[in-house]
């Protein structure tokens, strides 16, 4: 297709308005597309020109925010990251992400994703509470230590891995590849001292041992993260900890502030006096 050639394509979109419909149904929209048109652009065209009541999430339009995850021809994709011509078809079927409740049309309820994500303590935990509350300097980390977890920091919490996961489909309480991947990301961080706390969390029922290692999560991830690998490495860590063979290394030390470093900028006084 040349860059300006326009052709017609049909979007078969699953619709559900919980206030009106008892079960989902499909609605077809015919719209013009050209080379490079993304599925999200098609949906925006429908919203602007054909049916303003169509509901879907979108924000950055460049595969960064993770809002527009949906099933396109029965496979989870980011709508902004997927061009219509990739499918070599005159009809695309769009559905909301599975393994989650539907709020409306293509909008899934992501509460469980974020609850599970929060439950694995996805942040640096240090024993020194004083330094955690009032940091005085950064922590030293070697490039090799960063490489241990770098790819897992690219997670955008779009939920495509959960939509692709067969265990999440059958076990609603399963923590899921996203949360388990992030648990490993922080356990592997040399600045972190909360590994044991996270191991206790992921070792419970419906967590790390319930992964069937289908690796569908890694295949679906639009950012190239490999949650299946993270889960295997997490298992390795949990087993090593249980058997008492885990090598423990001192956590990253604080970087000494350079003598010529400028002093920290003072926080300005509140302009409105607090009671």
């Amino acid at each position: 297709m040349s860059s300006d050639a326009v052709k017609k394509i049909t979007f078969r979109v699953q619709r559900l308005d919980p206030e009106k419909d008892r079960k989902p149904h499909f609605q077809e929209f015919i719209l013009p597309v050209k080379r490079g048109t993304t599925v999200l652009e098609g949906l925006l065209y429908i919203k602007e020109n054909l049916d303003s009541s169509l509901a879907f999430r979108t924000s950055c339009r460049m595969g960064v925010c993770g809002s527009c995850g949906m099933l396109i021809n029965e496979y989870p994709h980011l709508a902004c990251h997927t061009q219509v011509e990739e499918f070599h078809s005159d009809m695309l079927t769009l559905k909301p992400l599975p393994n989650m409740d539907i709020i409306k049309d293509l909008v899934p309820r992501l509460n469980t994703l974020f609850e599970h994500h929060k439950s694995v303590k996805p942040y640096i935990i240090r024993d020194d509470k004083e330094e955690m509350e009032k940091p005085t300097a950064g922590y030293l980390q070697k490039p090799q230590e960063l490489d241990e977890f770098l790819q897992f920091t690219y997670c955008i919490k779009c939920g495509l891995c959960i939509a692709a996961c067969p265990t999440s489909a059958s076990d609603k309480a399963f923590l899921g590849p996203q949360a388990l991947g992030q648990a490993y990301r922080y356990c592997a961080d040399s600045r972190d001292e909360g590994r044991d706390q996270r191991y206790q969390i992921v070792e419970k029922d419906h967590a790390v041992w319930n992964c069937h290692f289908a690796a569908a999560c890694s295949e679906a991830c639009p950012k190239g993260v490999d949650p299946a690998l993270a889960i295997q490495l997490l298992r390795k860590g949990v087993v090593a900890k249980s058997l008492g063979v885990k090598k423990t290394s001192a956590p990253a030390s604080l970087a000494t502030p350079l003598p010529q470093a400028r002093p920290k900028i003072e926080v300005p006084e509140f302009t409105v006096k607090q009671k």
Partner: protein
Amino acid sequence: MKNTYLQISQMITGALVAILLAIHIAAQQSYVVLGLLGIKVADPTTWVSMMERAHQGSWVGIYIALLAFGLFHALNGLRNILLETNLSASAMRILTGCLIAFGVIFLILGTYTPIALFSSYR
């Protein structure tokens, strides 16, 4: 770390079941293969051969171990499957209790015969 220990045990018992089953199958079928090679050995499936094995401590040990490891591996595997059926925590506890009781009863029943046979011989 309960689940981790269960998972490690699942892997170890799986490997042990494979080894013990291989011994069992080899003992039961080797006479066919040896017979094809012209080596005549007694048929291990006859009553006399079975009783002979029942009076040997090593075979009694192998069969009791096979039963114990097989029961643990099978019932723990079943529990792992049931865990994914969205049962409530209390229902899961009851089911786990039932599986443990089932395993213990069948272990006692299964070990009774070889132990009784072995004891009667001595």
